[in-house]
């Protein structure tokens, strides 16, 4: 049953290549970027733009799994994915990823504008070539620079709606960019043995657990400033300002709890797990409130 040469891949495995759970956050932030824009595209074009962002994210997931199949096989968290588990052959994953990525960019250009399509293409290429192929296996700063790829969706959503840049979507880009390191480093702390076994130089593996905790706290500070910034800059109202301040304070508080934790084994890393869980909620609520605030102002 696991001979990829004899069996065509099951459709569920093809779907799993797109990392649907990661896609949900990407789609949500892209949608919020679009809904926060001063003008909205016709419904079908807006829907298509979000669909293209989702397909682009799916292409990134597929190409990431294609390239990292050998690494995934060495990590417990990823060993059951379709490629390392032998349920699918690598070439099919490559064709699927390239096809999906090309299709998403083309459809974005035809449905909205070519500026948004170019940004989508850059984000896919950045994630695959700069993050997955170049940075991830080479430097513990992989997630810092690579985080830019995940920060593109609100920018793409905004540009798909308006056709041009503005300061607010650039701030949204900055928020996700600065949020990514504490989010991923919190995870990498309690799965660091996996990364070490796979030979990936994540920060806890290379620089140690305490140094990573310090970096998490340090990154949470500019992230909090960027998250609150739209309010004093007059880009949002008080609803967003108060919510962003409260959420960011909670984030920094949880990061401080991580900073003072001295456990070295995953069993003692409750603050890290709490911060990781909260970081996902943080971004969802922050962006949701941003949209609500912009709509209340209209």
């Amino acid at each position: 049953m696991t001979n990829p040469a004899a069996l065509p891949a099951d459709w569920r495995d093809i779907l799993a290549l797109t990392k649907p759970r990661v896609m949900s956050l990407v789609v949500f932030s892209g949608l919020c970027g679009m809904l926060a824009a001063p003008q909205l595209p016709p419904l079908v074009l807006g829907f298509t733009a979000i669909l293209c962002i989702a397909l682009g994210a799916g292409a990134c997931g597929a190409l990431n799994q294609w390239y990292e199949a050998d690494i995934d096989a060495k990590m417990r968290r990823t060993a059951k994915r379709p490629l390392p588990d032998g349920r699918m052959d690598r070439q099919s994953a490559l064709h699927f990823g390239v096809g999906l990525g090309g299709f998403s960019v083309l459809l974005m250009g035809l449905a909205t504008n070519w500026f948004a399509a170019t940004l989508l293409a850059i984000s896919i290429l950045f994630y695959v070539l700069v993050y997955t192929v170049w940075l991830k296996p080479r430097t513990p700063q992989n997630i810092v620079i690579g985080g830019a790829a995940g920060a593109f969706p609100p920018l793409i959503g905004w540009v798909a709606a308006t056709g041009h840049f503005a300061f607010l979507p650039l701030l949204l880009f900055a928020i996700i960019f600065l949020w990514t390191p504490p989010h991923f480093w919190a995870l990498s702390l309690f799965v660091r043995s996996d990364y070490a076994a796979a030979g990936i130089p994540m920060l806890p593996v290379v620089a140690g657990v305490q140094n990573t905790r310090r970096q998490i706290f340090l990154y949470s500070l500019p992230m909090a400033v960027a998250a609150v910034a739209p309010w004093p800059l007059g880009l949002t109202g008080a609803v967003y300002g108060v919510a962003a301040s409260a959420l960011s304070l909670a984030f920094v508080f949880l990061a401080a709890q991580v900073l003072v934790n001295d456990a070295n084994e995953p069993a003692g890393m409750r603050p890290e797990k709490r911060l990781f869980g909260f970081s996902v909620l943080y971004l969802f609520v922050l962006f949701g409130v941003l949209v609500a605030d912009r709509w209340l102002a209209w």
Partner: protein
Amino acid sequence: MKLEEEIVRRQRARARITAWLLGAFVVLLFFITIAKTGINW
């Protein structure tokens, strides 16, 4: 389940999903064209 049966089952499932997706894409293209050309119904 025999290997041949499993192959046919998977091919059928994929063909069915591909057909639905293609159909949805055609409908989407139609509405994109309507929206881009600015036709109001």
